[in-house]
């Protein structure tokens, strides 16, 4: 449809004019509040307390969300918010990975706060337009878009009924609509969800950045926890921001020179070492597909196994050689030389409403290849790219879709569900056509796709209650915790990673801690106390990225040549110092590593208490499915019998001679579940929590987080 026709059909609901202002050392000092129930637009000051205790990014997001909601707020209540905030470092162009936004909301998957980080231009352009954060509340009756013009100082809420919903079409339409010309398109950033987000609980947000070489609006995803579902439930079709004067000093930094020097140092490392290390510039995170297979960590057939002979068909070089365009700038924000946002161009779609279209597919990332591929036994690169594309444009999280589909496939293979229940879909492992049908059904809101789209937590309840399935078995094989689907790593052989998934605030997403190599392979953290220390440091360190608007990948997907000579190479000390220098350069705050951990601890404990306030966040909520810990079925045990028999003998002193597989499985399970409980005790202690997982008042005082509203929540649980 003609862009002019679309725009002429818009109906202005509210307009707000503001002074553009100036950023001071990374902060604009104000947030943009938009209530779409009342068509109200306001400026809210950012207080010194917010900067001191919450820093920015997800810290600001969680603080606003806490104040906007009550202990009984549900994800689809009008008071639930979507907050987008970059953080004080967000938007610098000197250091790779400095354009991230953090998005917070109460999740339809977990019924508690979720945070999801995302690249693309929206976060930085929002700040340069004069706003540290966007706080979106309320529900509209009709489809709307919100347009922030950072050149002229206006915010508008417009009814927009004719535009598409799917991300790749709507991103293009609105980029075209709000850019003055082709060159101006890079100054427009759009946030969309997609049609699938309307009918599932796993909706995501697409954040665009315009790619002038490909001439397409590229899509980066705030994928986890169903924030796209909240977005569409509010009847928001899109957010648009426009700002036309991006420069390297717009944060008005405290010391520009240190930013320049630190950035140049890392750019040189990337140039010299990336081809010998992770090859991020060629294939991005998908470089580890075959590595995970070789270490028996790749999820195969709903995490039953860790490798498969057919992984060779989807290994990274297949995508490099046949699909991923090489030699183009793939940074999702200016200045990112790591450039991991890879894409397959002119990809011909074979199914669905866009069948026959040649499109740009943003991906595959590792999680897409593993979740949509090996976990569903779809060892077909074109199948993976097709599912990747449709997940993105429909606004569906690839990780939740992949893990939930793998669960449904295992249930189908085991006869727990059948063709009658699936509406005729043959959900065998490896059936690409059925997986694609599920996705298209999610987009249309029909069929078994809607059931899978509710996520594993709700599928388990449905299959047990309606179809008489064994609830205990479903709990064992359903790879979800707290309502969120696991991301795509097998954790059976790493106790630390079982905690890295299970002892998290938002659910089993590896962005808090990925400890498998340190634990399982390197054997660097053998005791419970060692593991607990790692499960304190790494989640705090990684939380910190989300406070400042930083990407984690340039921290450890590239390492300095002399890193091996440091005392703690896993932490990449030189890069940690880089980050401390950058924060100093932007804000003038001179932090040490202890301060860094302390800043994160404040927000991390706040989020834990937020969970408790909503009836979660206790020890019982940190229980994990047994498949994350060990072999649930006889086939799983026997496929790695030598390993398990050996462990029974060496670790427990159990004589396996003459024992049945079932007997051995029971002993192994008892041992591993006990190990997880002991780990939980050690981690809670290290984090300053009591045995029920509740932060102690004493610890909150130490952190300076003994705010009355927090004490009120935890005082009865001490």
């Amino acid at each position, binding site marked *: 449809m003609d862009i002019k026709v679309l725009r002429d059909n818009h109906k202005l609901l509210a307009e707000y004019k503001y002074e553009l202002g100036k950023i001071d050392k990374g902060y604009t000092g104000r947030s943009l509040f938009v209530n779409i129930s009342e068509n109200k637009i306001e400026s809210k000051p950012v207080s010194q307390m917010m900067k001191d205790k919450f820093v920015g990014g997800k810290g600001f997001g969680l603080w606003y969300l806490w104040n906007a909601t009550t202990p009984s707020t549900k994800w689809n209540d009008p008071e639930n918010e979507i907050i987008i905030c970059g953080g004080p470092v967000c938007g610098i162009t000197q250091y790779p990975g400095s354009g991230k936004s953090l998005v917070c909301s109460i999740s339809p998957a977990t019924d508690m706060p979720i945070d999801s980080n995302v690249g693309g231009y929206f976060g930085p352009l929002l700040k340069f337009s004069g706003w540290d954060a966007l706080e979106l509340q309320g529900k509209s009756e009709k489809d709307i878009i919100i347009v922030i013009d950072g050149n002229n100082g206006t915010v508008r809420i417009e009814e927009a009924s004719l535009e598409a919903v799917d991300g790749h079409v709507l991103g293009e339409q609105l980029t075209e609509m709000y850019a003055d010309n082709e060159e101006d398109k890079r100054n427009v950033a759009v946030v969309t969800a997609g049609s699938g987000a309307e009918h599932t609980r796993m909706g995501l947000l697409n954040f665009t950045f315009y790619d002038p070489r490909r001439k397409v609006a590229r899509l980066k995803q705030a994928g986890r926890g169903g924030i796209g579902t909240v977005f569409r439930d509010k009847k928001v079709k899109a957010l648009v921001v426009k700002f036309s004067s991006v420069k390297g000093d717009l944060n008005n930094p405290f010391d520009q020179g240190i930013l320049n020097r630190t950035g140049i140092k890392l750019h040189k490392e990337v140039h010299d070492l990336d081809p*010998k*290390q*992770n090859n991020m510039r060629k294939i991005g995170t998908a470089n*580890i597909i*075959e*590595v995970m297979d*070789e*270490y028996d960590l790749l999820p195969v057939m709903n995490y039953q196994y860790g490798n498969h002979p057919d992984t060779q068909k989807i290994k990274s070089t297949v995508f490099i050689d046949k699909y991923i365009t090489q030699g183009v700038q793939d940074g999702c924000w200016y200045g990112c030389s790591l450039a991991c946002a890879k894409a397959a161009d002119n990809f011909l779609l074979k199914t669905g409403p866009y069948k026959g279209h040649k499109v740009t597919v943003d991906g595959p990332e*590792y999680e897409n290849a593993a979740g949509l591929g090996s976990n569903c036994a779809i060892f077909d690169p074109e199948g993976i790219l097709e599912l990747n594309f449709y997940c993105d444009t429909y606004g569906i999280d690839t990780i939740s879709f992949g893990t939930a589909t793998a669960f449904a496939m295992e249930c189908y293979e085991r006869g727990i569900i059948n063709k009658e229940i699936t509406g005729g879909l043959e959900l065998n492992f490896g059936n690409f056509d059925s997986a694609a049908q599920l996705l298209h059904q999610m987009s249309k809101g029909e069929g078994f796709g809607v059931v899978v789209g509710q996520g594993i937590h709700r599928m388990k309840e449905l299959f047990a209650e309606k179809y008489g399935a064994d609830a205990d078995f479903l709990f064992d094989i359903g790879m979800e915790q707290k309502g969120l689907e696991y991301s795509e*790593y097998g954790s059976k052989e790493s106790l630390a990673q079982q905690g890295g998934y299970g002892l998290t605030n938002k659910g089993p997403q*590896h962005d808090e801690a*990925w*400890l*498998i*190599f*340190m634990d399982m*392979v*390197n*054997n*660097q953290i*053998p005791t419970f106390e060692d593991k607990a220390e790692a499960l304190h440091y*790494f989640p705090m360190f990684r939380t910190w990225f989300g406070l400042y608007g930083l990407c*984690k*990948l340039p*921290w*450890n*997907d590239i*390492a300095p040549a002399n*890193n*091996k*000579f440091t005392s703690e*190479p*896993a*932490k*990449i000390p030189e890069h940690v110092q880089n980050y401390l220098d950058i924060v100093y350069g932007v804000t003038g705050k001179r932090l040490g590593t202890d301060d860094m951990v302390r800043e994160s601890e404040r927000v991390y404990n706040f989020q834990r208490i937020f969970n408790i306030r909503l009836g979660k966040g206790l020890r019982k909520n940190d229980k994990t499915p047994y498949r994350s810990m060990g072999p649930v079925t006889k086939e799983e045990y026997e496929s790695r019998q030598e390993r398990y028999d050996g462990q029974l003998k060496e670790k427990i002193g159990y004589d396996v001679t003459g024992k049945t597989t079932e007997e051995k499985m029971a002993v192994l399970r008892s041992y591993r579940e006990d190990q997880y409980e002991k780990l939980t005790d050690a981690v809670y202690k290290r984090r300053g929590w009591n045995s029920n997982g509740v932060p102690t008042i004493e610890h909150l005082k130490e952190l300076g987080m003994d705010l009355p509203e927090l004490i009120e929540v935890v005082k009865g649980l001490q």
Partner: protein
Amino acid sequence: MIKVNNRDFQWEQGMTVDDIMKIKKFSWPKIIVKINGQHVEEEDYKTRIVNDGDDVQMLHLLAGG
């Protein structure tokens, strides 16, 4: 017998760092190798002989994902 990452590992006469990596299927590109605390450079993996009783560390650098 030698130690590899603090676990017992069957030693054989003439065994090199590269041999151990092949047996263990260690293919990750960022591995730090130390024998008895001394670094071994990647270009020496095929020629560096490991002696009986050595303490070998093969530290995979990935704390991310």
